[in-house]
């Protein structure tokens, strides 16, 4: 390949997506607010008793994070698809998997990272036992990138459809099951005083697997959606 290399394209695309996100600050805050509000609704809907809250807090926060990611996924390729940028990216000599990785990374930095910042606060509100707060944060740190990566496949498959939103959740949510199981379970195990190295290592394994395979599947799906 002549001219600037693939690494340069990766960095530039990441930079561009982040700048776009910062210029649209309203949209940036939406998934975060969604996360906080959903978590707030649970004590109102179920109970405010700290003991009950503590047992379900990890699951609630994990599901809220899952839905917040799902809600924001549609932005991943939508605007680029609408104005044709995506098509040009696929035509460029740079490997599509790498560009996909840049876009997904930008998506995680814009939606996953704010969730992580808000989590310690919500953990206090939801009466997560003190010992388990670190684990909750750590599982979300390992798990949310997987959510973005796997979600990317679903978005790439539905980006050409006019109303892909409901279909997207049908495609993506079943694939989130393992991450949810290990993530939420690790928190419960810590609260019970059990070792959680196994769960954390499993989450690491999911992350590595998703990191290596999901961009390939996403790129293939984009190629199908575009032509």
């Amino acid at each position: 390949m002549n001219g600037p290399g693939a690494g340069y394209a990766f960095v530039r695309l990441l930079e561009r997506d982040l700048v776009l996100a910062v210029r649209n600050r309203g949209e940036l805050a939406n998934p975060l607010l969604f996360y906080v509000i959903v978590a707030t609704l649970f004590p109102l809907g179920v109970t405010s008793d700290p003991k009950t809250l503590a047992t379900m807090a990890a699951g609630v926060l994990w599901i809220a994070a899952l839905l917040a990611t799902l809600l924001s996924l549609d932005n991943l390729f939508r605007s680029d698809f609408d104005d044709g940028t995506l098509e040009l990216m696929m035509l460029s000599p740079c490997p599509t998997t790498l560009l996909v990785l840049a876009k997904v990374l930008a998506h995680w930095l814009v939606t996953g990272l704010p969730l992580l910042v808000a989590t310690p606060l919500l953990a206090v509100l939801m009466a997560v036992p003190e010992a388990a707060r670190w684990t909750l944060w750590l599982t979300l740190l390992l798990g949310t990138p997987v959510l973005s990566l796997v979600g990317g496949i679903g978005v790439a498959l539905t980006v050409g459809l006019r109303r892909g939103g409901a279909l997207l959740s049908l495609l993506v949510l079943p694939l989130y099951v393992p991450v949810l199981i290990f993530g939420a379970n690790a928190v419960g195990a810590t609260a019970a005083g059990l070792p959680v190295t196994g769960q954390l290592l499993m989450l690491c394994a999911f992350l590595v697997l998703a990191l290596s395979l999901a961009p390939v599947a996403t790129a293939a799906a984009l190629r199908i959606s575009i032509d």
Partner: protein
Amino acid sequence: MWTFLHKLGSPRHFYRISGGMLPWLAWTTALLMAAGLYGGLVLAPPDYQQGESYRIIFIHVPSAWMSLFVYVIMAAAGAVGLVWRIKLADVMAAASAPLGASFTFLALVTGSLWGKPMWGTYWVWDARLTSELVLLFLYFGVMGLHAAIEDKRTASRAAAVLALVGVVNIPIIHYSVEWWSTLHQGPTVTKFDAPSIHLSMLVPLLLMALAFKLYYVTVLLMRARSEVLERERSSAWVRELARGT
């Protein structure tokens, strides 16, 4: 051999050959199913622990086996269609999805009916029940994608990618759910030493499993034939066929 396979891959020859095979397949299926049901419902003795209610095994276990089998077939056909652009493989994958979903649904329903007398409840969040439910959702995803994309070729390719992602995920989902909780009885047929199921029950069970497989092939061919006609409706041979009858 290769020319035969090549011919079979073309929709027109597939339509002709499968038409000849269908009656044979259908009758064999009916015979096997009758034999399996007779053996299972009449000949096999009642279980010493579960009494008569265990007999639902002859439907439940074959449909549970089929639910996974069909998914793998669907993904493999999808991959073949994706890589070699064989139209017939796309058709097979598209025709498999609703069939697999119905097998999964059947396994879930019979399982919960069986669970009521045995475990005292219709539904428990047991590992295999849960992973079967997730499998049903995966099937719904594939079907939803097929339905949502208008162009059949694009729909097939998109669904193939999804099915392949699902194949990578099914073992992960299965084992994580298994690890999460389990209540199911251990495997009774596939143990390597003597299976812990008596021969008088094993034979009808295997007959039923075979009957279910053939049933799947029969209905798959029927669905694929109509799908082929629909997809090739503007081609000369379909028009000829329509005019001829």
